[in-house]
């Protein structure tokens, strides 16, 4: 059953990935209905309250992915199932449940939690996986739920999950002409909110290190707009490089050893890369243009960035060491804030067209453009670690308006608001925590 689902899921992604025509918008009507969410039952894990809470988070994660329909617990015929037991298949088949997860949570002598869990294919009458065990500090019980969610997602789709991850964003408060902006970090599902900067300085565009608990971002501290590096756990900060002008739009290289960013030089912005160990800087672009928003391919070999060298903002790809950039966006409008998917197969972007700000994706050669989100103002996509979901911010107009975070999957049909305490912009998704 899942093999069918897996095939369908992968086929769907493939259809989108290979859709061609750089400028035409793709209609989703044909393919949208192709993958019905797979009915899945998540039984309450056995154990005390935390066991139920873990089950609830798993259900929530899987539901939010848009790929699964979580069967209502009230409808269950078989009410309990020990982690070592076998489900009564007929009781689940009647409910049309295709997959079932059960588990148990116990406390170890040292206070840590042990979670045992299994995943069943009801129609094939076999385990997808059995006897998985996780041991984790009790205070990280939510992470246990996310890790298990990822295992279930992978077991059912054949793709890596994205639930054990975090999001850093800019929290916005105060009136529109006097916004206070703070860096805030939270779990992918909005839990465990933590403020990283105090709000005394304007901060923008935070980005995660792919390898360390580090964020690079831009701050106007001391009236000097510059790129900074922030250690998430210690709060330690430092300026990146010693540049003569404004530095902005930073992003890490995939190995975490370099930061690429723009340096403002008179009226022009050029892209520089700085090696974090040697502190050597390399100029990657030159000329009378605004070159900004650089983002590495996951293998580190190339960069995509936006430039107005041709008159208005378009996307260009060049080698990681510089060289002649090749324009890849040719649709009707202006293209900006490109971000290379962690899978390497797509580049997400903001597109301004017809007075709207859209979120879309295209292949790295510029073909297969698809718009996923439309409206007055959508901006700044970031990829989930599995490259199947995007998060971005959507700004509502007017004096009382402001930005909120949204997520959308690659089919374009599963758009969700991401809960944040206040207005929120510039989201950046972390890699899987592992």
């Amino acid at each position, binding site marked *: 059953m899942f093999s069918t689902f897996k095939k369908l899921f992968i086929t769907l992604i493939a259809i989108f990935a290979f859709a061609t025509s750089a400028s035409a918008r793709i209609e989703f009507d044909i393919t949208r209905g192709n993958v019905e969410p797979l009915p899945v039952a998540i039984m309450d894990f056995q154990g005390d309250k935390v066991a139920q809470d873990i089950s609830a988070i798993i259900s929530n994660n899987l539901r939010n992915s848009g790929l699964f329909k979580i069967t209502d617990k009230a409808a269950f015929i078989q009410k309990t199932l020990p982690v070592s037991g076998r489900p009564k298949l007929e009781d689940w088949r009647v409910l049309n449940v295709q997959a079932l997860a059960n588990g148990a949570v116990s406390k170890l002598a040292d206070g840590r939690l042990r979670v045992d869990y299994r995943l069943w294919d009801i129609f094939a009458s076999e385990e997808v996986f059995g006897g998985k065990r996780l041991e984790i500090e009790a205070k990280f019980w939510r992470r246990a739920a996310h890790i298990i969610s990822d295992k279930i997602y992978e077991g059912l789709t054949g793709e890596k999950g994205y639930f054990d991850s975090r999001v850093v964003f800019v929290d916005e408060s105060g009136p529109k002409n006097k916004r206070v*902006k703070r860096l805030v970090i939270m779990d992918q599902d909005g839990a465990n909110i933590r403020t990283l900067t105090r709000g005394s300085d304007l901060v923008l565009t935070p980005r995660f290190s792919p390898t360390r608990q580090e964020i690079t971002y831009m701050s106007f501290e001391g009236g000097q707009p510059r790129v900074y590096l922030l250690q998430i756990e210690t709060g330690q900060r430092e300026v990146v490089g010693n540049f003569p002008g404004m530095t902005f739009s930073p992003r890490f290289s995939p190995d975490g050893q370099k930061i690429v960013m723009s340096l403002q030089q008179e009226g022009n912005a050029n892209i520089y890369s700085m090696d974090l160990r040697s502190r050597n800087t390399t100029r990657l672009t030159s000329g009378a243009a*605004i070159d900004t928003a650089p983002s590495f391919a996951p293998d580190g070999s190339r960069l995509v960035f936006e430039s107005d060298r041709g008159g208005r903002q378009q996307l260009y790809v060049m080698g990681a060491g510089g060289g002649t950039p090749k324009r890849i966006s040719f649709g009707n409008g202006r293209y900006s804030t490109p971000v290379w998917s962690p899978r390497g197969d797509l580049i997400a972007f903001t597109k301004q067209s017809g007075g709207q700000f859209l979120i879309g994706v295209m292949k790295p050669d510029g073909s297969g453009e698809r718009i996923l989100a439309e409206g007055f103002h959508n901006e700044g996509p970031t990829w989930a670690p599995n490259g199947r979901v995007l998060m971005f911010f959507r700004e509502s107009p*007017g004096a009382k308006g402001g930005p909120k975070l949204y997520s959308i999957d690659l089919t374009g049909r599963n758009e969700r608001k991401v809960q944040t305490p206040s207005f929120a912009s510039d989201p950046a998704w972390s890699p899987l925590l592992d």
Partner: protein
Amino acid sequence: MLAATSILKSPAVLALALGLAVAGCAKKDKLPDNSGQLGLNNSGEAPGSPGEFTTTIGDRVFFETDSTILTATARQTLTGQAQWLLRYPNYLITIEGHADERGTREYNLALGARRAAATRDFLASQGVPRSRIRTISFGKERPIAVCNDISCWSQNRRARTALTQPQG
């Protein structure tokens, strides 16, 4: 011009000017952008004060959408600014470049910087020493008008000439 500066430094004149400024501060008539050139000053602001600069000459110029070209009006205002700044050479100058909200964040930071640079270059071409001028871009982060239409966006596409108090 030097005479004007030295007169202003006389405490009596300064006190008089401040008195006038206080008396007149409830009435801030909006003067044309180029009023400074015309020698107008009915603002009640003390001659040589940042207040006078703002009310009689105008501390900001506006740009067309996605443009860094100085309009005729902007050049007129900046010509007035340059004359005033040459008359009062002690002020340090920060030019703040801004963009409206209808652009993406990173690009707007660079666009604001371009606008600030264009403004600085014009002032320099009018004789204001570059060493007095610093530029900064706020991109779309600091709008002054917050409604949702073109009338507001056009007020936000601006470069503001901010003065720092004379030293000593």
